[in-house]
């Protein structure tokens, strides 16, 4: 068996530690992995299915529009990610193999490496009409604080996204910016390295995000804030002024970073330049 690219290995290990349902495909849309959190929504267990050809898993896991029509190929999140190198956020009706139907919001994004390789795509999906589960604060033993590192979920997240072209931000459960990846630096107008500890509210005050019509977006309506405080994913288009003084319009999805045992670790934001 040929070894998988490092980014796929990292994506799979990260997904296996997260409470957010995640599914990963290769550039031919063959299914490489779905995590345990996705199993109740899909009505399948990965340990039983293993990897599957595109046609095989598409037959097993049917996704439709609200009226039951199949989602047009060009509107499918994974297709857009793999074939157009575009992230997509959309709503789908997922008809699981166990006969249940779930209304899900889907975020698809390409797994394109900074070295230029297209490795496939990942989708994170969550039940749109179900109240968010309230995670528990991550346990940090008090006497361990002086030498503690980040949880392994955060480490894998950073190691993966530092290698990808998708602009990504992560904040901790305490609201501190953990990192943004090199791909996000052009949006922010500055590299992450050298930036000191920043809280989300300070960050927010600097970037001053606004709606398309220029109306300031209240902090509690920003996707990262929603993900962190309401424990649910959120999507929004907005404009802001980067640290380099350039105004940009972006679309972004943020979702809570909930790790093993429902530990609340923070929030992850994936943003893309709407103009580009």
């Amino acid at each position: 068996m040929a070894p998988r690219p490092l980014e796929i290995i990292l994506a799979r290990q990260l997904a296996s530690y997260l409470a957010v349902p995640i599914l990963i495909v290769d550039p031919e849309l063959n299914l490489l992995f779905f995590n345990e959190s996705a199993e109740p929504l899909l009505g399948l267990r990965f340990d039983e299915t293993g990897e599957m050809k595109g046609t095989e898993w598409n037959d097993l896991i049917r996704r439709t529009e609200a009226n039951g029509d199949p989602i047009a190929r060009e509107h499918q999140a994974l297709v857009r990610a793999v074939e157009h190198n575009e992230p997509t956020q959309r709503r789908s009706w997922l008809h699981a193999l166990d006969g249940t139907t779930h209304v899900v919001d889907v975020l698809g994004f390409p797994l394109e490496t900074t070295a230029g390789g297209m490795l496939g795509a990942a989708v994170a999906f969550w039940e749109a009409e179900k109240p968010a589960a309230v995670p528990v604060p991550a346990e940090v033993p008090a006497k361990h604080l002086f030498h503690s590192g980040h949880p392994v979920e955060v480490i894998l997240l950073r190691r993966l996204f530092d290698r990808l072209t998708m602009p990504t931000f992560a904040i901790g459960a305490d609201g501190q910016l953990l990192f943004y990846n090199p791909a996000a630096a052009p949006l922010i107008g500055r590299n992450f390295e050298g930036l000191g500890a920043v809280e989300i509210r300070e960050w927010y005050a600097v970037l001053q995000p606004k709606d398309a019509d220029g109306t300031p977006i209240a902090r509690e309506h920003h996707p990262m804030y929603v993900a962190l405080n309401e424990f649910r994913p959120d999507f929004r288009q907005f404009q802001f002024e980067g640290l380099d003084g350039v105004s940009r319009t972006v679309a972004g999805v943020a979702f809570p970073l909930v790790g093993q045992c429902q530990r609340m670790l923070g929030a992850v934001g994936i943003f893309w330049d709407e103009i580009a």
Partner: protein
Amino acid sequence: MKVTLWGTRGSMASPGPETNRYGGNTSCVEVRGVDRTVLVLDAGTGIRRLGDAIVEEIRRVDVLLTHLHMDHIQGLGFFEPFFRPDIEVHLWGPSSTGLQLQERLSRYMSPPLFPVRLRDLPCQLTLHDVVSIGSFEIGPFDVEAELVCHPGPTVGYRIEEDGASFVYLPDHEPILGAEDFFGDPEYIPGLGLARDADLLIHDTMFTAEEYPSHVGWGHSSLDQALAFARAAGVRQLVNFHHDPGHTDTELERRVEHAIASDPGVELLRGLEGASFTVGAAVA
């Protein structure tokens, strides 16, 4: 505390004349406190002999599982204290995002893989999910568990007694996806757990030549374990989770080479049956 190795091998048991010295049993380590409290780290095939050795002496034993891969649980069904109604057994280990520890363990401890169900064991059994608990006390020991880098939910353990510290990371690939061990210590999995430990047992499954074709398998080479130990400021490192295909001769050659190259950490041999004293000696 006294740390004794009852199983040192990774992946599968590999008894035979070529593995006699480093041992053929899979992961199992006994930690004995100054008050004779017993912790058992992992339940590989080495746990069978350990169980027989302690069963008449103990009324409580705590088995701390790092993860549920077969080489770390295969000996569970042959651990004599499980079959004694007068013994309290506490099993600690990681749940997954969808399944509790009991459900996960029951997949092995039930027919057809094993004739006796977990729930039918005669001992007084209690299960604990270590990821949600994080840190806890057992007798004289302060124990911390932390998720580390290995496929599937896997933890490492730090055990302290009267200021002496021992860290157990038998299956761990901290270098996965990282450029080196010295960029940002906060972004090295397990490093906080291992920081300034007196004794570290760490995965050294692969040779430096083997590692590139096994990236993502969740294991390290001896060179990587030494680099990790140096970055963590560890005093002594024990090589562990030996590949079933590596003979005593090969393992010994690798250890001697590492020691000769002045690795910056005292390297101790992970031999089955070896004991190490950490802090106060145990009578």
